[in-house]
């Protein structure tokens, strides 16, 4: 019989190497043992994916390793998502995400989505090649706390500004926190387009999103 500690260690280790079938098995074993979904998530899956990110930063892991780990965690999340919802734990916030118009790259964005969801955000992903008017319509429909613009190409980064202009024009700019990210993006560029936040990787995005949300909420009078 596997113990809860062994389940957590196994989830951590198998997520790290991207063993999706084993991660799902261990998730089931943990639930069968009566372990809380939050524990599986926060004590094993998220720390493991954070370690994957750290190894990528150090050059010990490459994109394939990141992706298979992300897929393994995503599989577990599919199983845990409805259970987490049932627990009645409120989401940290609602995050609307999309890759800008003219850009089809979404590997980084998808990893960010997994980390955000794991951290308790409700994530609405608009996919790739999202036009400014589509962002505006989705903000209207979903009323997110944060909207994230992702770009991989220097040639598509200017769409950040186009999106900001569309939000201004629609009178929505003060309604949402805007975060930007992607390989060519820098803090300076984020500042230049008037974004509220920028982060260099998935883990940093989660921390920055939480900080921005806390900042905004603390400004709202009770």
């Amino acid at each position: 019989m596997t113990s809860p500690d062994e389940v957590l260690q196994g989830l951590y280790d198998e997520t790290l190497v991207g063993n999706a079938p084993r991660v799902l098995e261990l998730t089931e074993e943990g639930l069968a043992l009566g372990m809380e979904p939050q524990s599986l998530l926060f004590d094993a899956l998220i720390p493991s994916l954070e370690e994957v990110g750290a190894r990528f930063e150090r050059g010990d892991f490459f994109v394939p390793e990141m992706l298979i780990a992300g897929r393994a965690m995503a599989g577990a999340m599919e199983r845990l998502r409805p259970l987490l919802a049932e627990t009645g734990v409120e989401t940290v916030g609602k995050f609307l995400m999309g890759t800008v118009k003219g850009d089809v790259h979404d590997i980084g964005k998808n990893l960010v989505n997994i980390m955000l969801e794991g951290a308790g955000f409700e994530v609405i992903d608009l996919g790739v090649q999202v036009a400014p008017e589509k962002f505006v319509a989705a903000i209207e429909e979903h009323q997110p706390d944060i909207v994230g613009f992702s770009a991989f190409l220097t040639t598509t980064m200017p769409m950040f500004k186009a999106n900001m202009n569309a939000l201004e024009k629609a009178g929505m700019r003060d309604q949402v926190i805007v975060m930007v990210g992607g390989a060519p993006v820098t803090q300076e560029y984020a500042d230049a387009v008037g974004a509220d936040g920028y982060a260099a990787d998935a883990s940093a995005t989660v921390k920055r999103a939480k900080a921005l949300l806390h900042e905004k909420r603390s400004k709202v009078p009770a």
Partner: protein
Amino acid sequence: MPVALVACGAIAQPVAEIVERRGWPVAVHPLPPLLHNQPHLIADEVRDLARALALCHETVAVAYADCGTYGALDAVCAELGLRRLPGLHCYDLFAGESRLASFLDDEPGTYLLTDFLVRSFERTVVRELGLDRHPELREDYFRHYTRAVWLAQDPTPELRALADGAAATLGLPLTVVETGHRRLEAALEALLGGSAAGTDSAPLR
């Protein structure tokens, strides 16, 4: 050789052929082509090699475009007083910037291939992206691509067959655009002509 050229391994072969054909007194020093997949390492690698070459050459130039360094290579060039090839990627050097931009405007989901990538597809794409070990990742990488465009510098039947195979592996229709080496040669000529500044003998005939 008075001039040393730090070259991306992915274009070093045609660069060396052009240098030889034109009889330029230039020594081509390639860096590993797989840096193509780790562009954040390029600037430091170029700096190290350029510094070493500067000890025994009058002039050092850089046969890289920006190549995904997002300005880091330009910073190294400014630091060491080097010049590099123009453009964002080697694709610009084969197809031309405006033509390439039109490909991507027409179909943002365009996956670009060069002769080098076609020839080394199994190593530089399949193995490097982990598709040999994790074929399920193909969907993650390529689901939003709609076509492969081969910027064919030297479209031999052998390369055409390899390009067809690469496109089939990606699950994309192949468009062949014959580019030759004309633009690359002109860009090299501009780069190396300028890099001889300070001497009366330009490296170009």
